[in-house]
Each structure stands twice: as C-alpha cells, then as structure tokens.
C-alpha cells in the first residue's frame, strides 16, 4: 500500500464539545485507498514548540468528496494550533499509515466496537466499512460524562449505540466494562481508547474467548517504521505500533500495565 506525502486543503473545521474538533481535509484528485484503523502523520509548521509530526487516526473517508476526516482533541500546542485552521489552509500529511482492523471472518457476525474518549475516532470509519459490507456492528462508547461523547449521531448511522458514562449523565453509569450490553454474546470486539480501558476490554474478551483487536496510540517520531520509537511488547518481541500496528490482535500483545 503506497504511502504518500501530500498537501490537503481544509474543507471544514467544526468545533465540537469538550475541546474536540472535526477537521475535514480534501484534494482535487481521488484519495488513495484507505483502510479503517489507518492513520496520518500531520505536519504543523506554525508552532515553535511543535517539532515532530502529529499522529491522528483517520476518522472517516468521504470518497465522493475526496475527504479525510480527523477527529481531534486539543491536548497541547500542536492540537491547539490545528483547532485554529481555516478553510482553505493547506496541511501536509503522510498517509495512509499502519495496518488496519481486520474484517470479520465468515463465522463472525456479532460485532462490538468499543471506544473511549477520542479513541472513538477510528471506530467511525470501521463502523462505516462494516456496515457497507453488510454487518450490523454495535457501538459501545464510554466517557467521563455526557460532554465526552463525540459524534454520537454519526455512529448511529451505522449501528446501535450503547453508552456508559462514569457519572451516569448519559447511558449506563460506570465504565464500558460495566455495561449490560456485554452480557450479550459477541464474535469479535474492536477497541480503541485509553489504555486501561483497552486492557480491561481485552481481558474481558480473553475471558469470554472473544476475538479482540485493539488500536494502540504509542508516541511516534517517524510513523513509517524507521526510528523504532513506537514499540509495544508482543510475543514476538518489540514491534512497531506504526507499521506492525496500530491494530493488534490482543493474542499477540504482552500487555505492560
């Protein structure tokens, strides 16, 4: 899958609640083929404290508009600067990077996508692709409170959405792992979010013998497998999250708590 360095143009920059924003980037030419779970390395030129590129999951691909969506949470100088992008601004991206979530096998039909915080980002595109392929994925989305639930209406397009908030301000109270939907049977779980959440979910999946894929967010320098900075411990030794991942089957991972 050929990686590209290219300039895309901001077509929309939509402020969302809780310091999130949705950045839509487009170009005249058709986009390359992009798989759910892949990410981009974005260059930020106008912020002295930002040196390396910044990594963002691909939230959605609108093929008709040649649009890549990034769902971003403002956490530091780089994301703050991006949140001020204007329509027409040009951004330099290296993409599409990383492997992808794997499609369910023929025996897997009951699919649960579990997301927490801004970790929901790649699950939207995954849900869209699964729906396109005829699956009916369920989404279980968690947040501290109702304000942390982003893009809910978008997820609802592609399947049933279940909610857990720590303070009970929306959906069931508690962590995603406490949610009653987990009493149902699932064939495959996909998850992305804070590490403790992903670990709890993968523990749950393991206990229930459910196939489970997680998307990791290690700190990256190059994003293309050259620097060996982004490793995670697997049963095959250290592997690069940027090229061997970001998606790993939990069976491969030697979770370091």
């Amino acid at each position: 899958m050929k990686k590209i360095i290219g300039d895309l143009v901001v077509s929309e920059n939509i402020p969302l609640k809780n310091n999130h924003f949705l950045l839509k980037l487009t170009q005249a030419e058709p986009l390359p083929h992009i798989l759910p779970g892949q990410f981009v390395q974005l260059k930020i030129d106008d912020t002295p404290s930002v040196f390396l590129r910044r990594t963002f999951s691909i939230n959605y691909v609108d093929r008709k508009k040649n649009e890549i969506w990034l769902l971003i949470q403002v956490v530091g100088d780089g994301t703050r600067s991006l949140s001020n992008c204007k329509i027409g601004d040009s951004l330099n991206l290296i993409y599409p990077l990383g492997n992808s979530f794997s499609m369910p096998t023929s025996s897997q039909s009951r699919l649960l996508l579990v997301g927490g915080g801004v970790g929901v980002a790649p699950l939207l595109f995954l849900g869209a692709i699964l729906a396109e392929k005829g699956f009916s994925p369920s989404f279980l989305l968690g947040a501290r409170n109702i304000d942390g639930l982003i893009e809910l209406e978008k997820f609802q397009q592609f399947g049933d959405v279940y909610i857990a908030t720590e303070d009970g301000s929306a959906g069931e109270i508690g962590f995603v792992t406490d949610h009653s939907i987990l009493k149902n049977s699932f064939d495959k779980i996909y998850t992305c979010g804070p590490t403790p959440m992903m670990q709890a979910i993968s523990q749950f999946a393991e206990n229930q013998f459910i196939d489970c894929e997680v998307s990791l967010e290690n700190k990256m320098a190059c994003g293309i497998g050259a620097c060996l900075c982004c490793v995670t411990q697997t049963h095959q030794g250290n592997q690069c999250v940027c090229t061997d991942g970001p998606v790993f089957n939990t069976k491969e991972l030697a979770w370091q708590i």
Partner: protein
Amino acid sequence: MANLTTKIGDLTLKNPVITASGTFGYGEEYLDFLDINQLGGICVKGTTLHRREGNPYPRMAETPSGMLNAVGLQNKGVDYFINTIYPRLTVFETAFIVNVSGSTLEDYIETAEKINSLSFIPAIELNISCPNVKQGGMAFGVDKDMAAEVVKEVRKVYHKTLIVKLSPNVTDIVSIAEAVEHVGADAVSLINTLLGMAIDAETQKPLLSTITGGLSGPCVKPIALRMVWQVAHAVKIPVVGMGGISNARDAIEFFLAGATAIEVGTANFIDPAVSLQVIQGVNDYLQRHHCESINDIIGALKTV
C-alpha cells in the same frame, strides 16, 4: 550540475549526502517517498553481534527543536542482517554503510569481521558513541585510549573504509578524533546524540523509560558544527558531519566547517524526502556561487 562526488577513504560517493544511522531504517522504509538510489549513501541501523530488544517503551520525547531517543540499538543481529536484509539491499545503487555497535571489544571485532565479507558494503561506521545502552560503546567513545584500542583491533579485521563515529559527550573531541586517526580510521563521523533528559512535570516521571536518552535535531546543530570545525582542523582524514541538518543551507554550513560529507538524521522523520532536497539545494548553491565542485566549499569558511 556541479560535481558532487566526494571521497571517504577508498569509498567514492556520488554525492556527499548520507542518511544517518537509526533514522532511515535500511532505506526500504523510505521507498514510497524517494528514489534512494539518488542518495550518496545510507547508513543502516546500528547493528550488533547478537539480536537486541532495545529499551522498553517510551523511547522518544520531543524537546525544543529536537527529540530525545532511547531506542537502545534494537536490531536482529549481524547474522540476520547478512542473511535476510543484505541480499535485498544489493539491488540498489547507493553506498550502504553499516553502523556497527557493541558492548565489548570482541563484539565490535566479530561484527566488523562478518561485515568485511560483504562485497556490496563498502564501509562501516563504527559507533563508539551510543548513549542509550549501558554498554553501548559510549564508554569507548568518551575515553581516547579505549577509542583507539577498539579502532586498532577492528582495523585488523576490517579492510574497507572504516569510519569512526564520535561522541559529543566529551570535554575534548579533538583528542579522540586524533587518537582514532592515529590507529588507522579512514574517517570520523560526528556527532552522535548528546545525552539529555526530559520530565513530565504533571506526572513527575521521566519521559523516557531509561530516564536519559540521546538528543538530536536542529537544537544540536551549533554544537555539532563547532565540533566538526574543531576536528576538521585537527585531523587529516575526512570528517563526516551531522547533527540537526534539515536543509541544504545547514549542509553547506557543515561543508564550510570542513565536512567532506554530511548525514541527515532526525529531519527524515519530519520530511522523508528531505535528503534529496538537500542534494538539490547543495547543487543549486554551488552553481549560484560559481563553484564547479563540492570540494570548492569544503573547509572554505572565511575566518580571516
């Protein structure tokens, strides 16, 4: 087109721009972004006698105009390199230089000896300066007698171009350069990373698993340039300069300071095709300044 060819020992490079060890993988990682055959050379990852897992995550922290790394020489060992990677590299038309690291004198010798037999590898870069592993050669690189000893022994078994990569974490880099020149190094390359540290004030923890790590990027350029200038004035062998080079202008500064070739490291992470821009920009500079050859600017700094 100006004449960009440059010589390091017996090795003639088609141009003086090499990608730095640990920042360009084996070159293959960059095939989607540039034609690596256009590079003067590629210094491949730090290679050790035995497989190494490297340090635990996190291995990277961003710093003002630079980064710290604590990769710790993760690699599958020299035999894996020879059997699996090397054959794939022989289809390319650039100089592959193997960066050899070790914990003991014997490691260095044995690894160098194995690489000596590879006809397609014209040179090694002996890394006596990695700050990121307890026995990563840094001890060799900061002591001129130990540096001389490892170079002397490797020289006995390695018969092609031997470049010795120096540590900047020293009081007197010139004395170390002179010591390795004296025992047969064909060239020195500098600088490796500077030992640094970063802390997350909120969690009150170090940002690297190893607490300290190696600093690279534009932030180190003034120090690197000073060391290249000092060493180039002291030794007769060629100096390969690096440290923060991000564009052609940076590269020119190193040539003026006395570098015969340069390496581009951290900048590859931000712009994977930057090395080709450096080559193009150096050529443009030479033409603009009416120079026929890169040799016209090497060491040409006007200090009156």
